[in-house]
Every structure is written in C-alpha cells, then in structure tokens.
C-alpha cells in the first residue's frame, strides 16, 4: 500500500458540484450520474452539499466576471488535498465563448485543474472515466 492517504482519497472521493456560468447541460449530466443507470456510489463517489466535505470539485462552465470571486472562495474553503475536475469543453478552453467580454477564462487560469473531461456535454461514462483517471494520477 503506497501512502494510505492516497488510498483513502482514491476509494472514497466525495464530490462537490460547482457551476459557474454554464449552460446547465453538464450539470444535468452530472446529476444523471446519480440515477440508477450510472450510479457512481458503487465507486464510493458521493455528492456532498458543502465544499468543506469535498475531496473533488466537479467544475462546469466558463467562469464569468460575476462568479469568479465566488469560485475562488469555494476553492479556498475546500480542505486540501483536493482534486479539480473540469467537466465539459467550457472548462478546457472557454469553448465558443472565447472572445466574450464577460468570460474571464477557463479554470486553469485560477485553479490547478487535475483532469479535463472534454465534450459538450460529455457522456456520463466519460465523466466517470475522468474522475477515475484523476484519481489514478494521484
């Protein structure tokens, strides 16, 4: 067993869903992970209600000016070590909103992002793969 800390994190990643200026398609797909068809609880993944309990931040959307301070605040509140997993192409490279005056850039400008799940919206299977890959990289 390598570092037990990492084993713990790998086996029970608690996820907090953070949506900043997203079109809600990825958010709906994130919710679909809980429904019987995909059921992420078999990997120990639980959706928690507060960043304090979270190990992984599932972020969606291209951050806009109004939600940027709040996004940074939530990241600061999450106890480290914590993963940041970007769901959807918006989190990878601002996607089609690159030149918008209100989109202030993908997450990796502000937060260390561990995994990107491209796709608009990514299929639920791709999201599960994203979380698993992020965990295996630890």
């Amino acid at each position, binding site marked *: 067993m390598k570092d037990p800390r990492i084993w713990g994190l790998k086996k029970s990643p608690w996820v907090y869903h953070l949506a900043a200026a997203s079109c809600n398609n990825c958010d709906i797909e994130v919710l679909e992970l809980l429904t019987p068809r995909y059921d992420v609880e078999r990997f120990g993944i639980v959706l928690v209600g507060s960043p304090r309990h979270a190990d992984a931040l599932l972020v969606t959307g291209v951050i*806009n*000016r*109004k939600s940027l*301070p709040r996004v940074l605040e939530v990241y600061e509140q999450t106890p480290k070590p914590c993963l940041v997993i970007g769901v959807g192409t918006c989190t990878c490279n*601002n996607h089609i909103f*690159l*030149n918008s005056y*209100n989109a202030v*850039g993908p997450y990796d400008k502000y937060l260390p992002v561990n995994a990107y799940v491209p796709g608009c919206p990514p299929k639920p299977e791709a999201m599960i793969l994203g979380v698993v890959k992020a965990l295996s990289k630890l």
Partner: protein
Amino acid sequence: MRDAEAGLKSLIPEAEVFEHNPKRLHISIPRERLTEAAKYLHRERGMRLATCTGIDTRAGLEVLYHFSEDKTGTMYTLRVLAPKDDPRLESQASWFPATDWIEREMHELLGIDFPGHPNLVPLLTSDTDWDREKYPLRRDYERRNEAHER
C-alpha cells in the same frame, strides 16, 4: 390594411409602415410618441411584448419594441431612434412590468438612459469588476481576440 395598423396610423400620422412580409411589420415613429404607441398596442390591441432590441447604428441608437399579436401571429415592431449624443428614451417599466428587465439590460450594455424607470440598476454585468462607462454592444467597444493573445 390591418385595423391595428390603421389605428396606429390614425393615432400617429407621421408613422411610416414598412411591410417586410404579411406577418412582419416595422413601424418607425418619433421618439416622443413611443409611450402613446406602446400603450395603444398593448392595452387597446392586447398585444404581448416579445422583447426590445437596441442597435448602435451610424444614425444613432435605434431601439425596436417587438409586439406580437398572438391571434394572427403577426409581429409589429416599433422603431425609435435616439441620437448618440442624447441616448434617452422614456421608460415604459412604470406601467408595463415586462419592459423592466430589458430596459435595465439595454441601459448597462448599450448606455441608453431610461428616465422614470423604478430601479435602473445593472442586471447582468458583474457587481465587482465592471467598467460602467464601457458598453459592450456598441460598435466602438474594443474586441480583444483571445485566440491570438495566447
């Protein structure tokens, strides 16, 4: 000659009507007669306001009030022009709640002033870091192309 169109012409003789196609009518009216025309279309003819469009043109800030007559499915668009140096239009929000948000949006994105609006505060832009003097939907707003920066 539809009766709504006739009624409007009798109310505001100097209105010019341009019929794009049977279901799309554009009526240009002077800025001062806006409230009268809007009240006539909404209250007498019972039309629903779809939305308002603000456009920054060479001739000035043009605002289109799109009214929809649902029974016949025709769109009546009131066209009003506010000169660039005096971007002011009478606010309809006091008597017509549907225009409340759209006037606030035009105020913050295009810089059109709406005297008489109950609370003309920013609707969409950020409360912390946003330059209130710069209006993104105006033609002179400098467009940064991030694609090249990187």
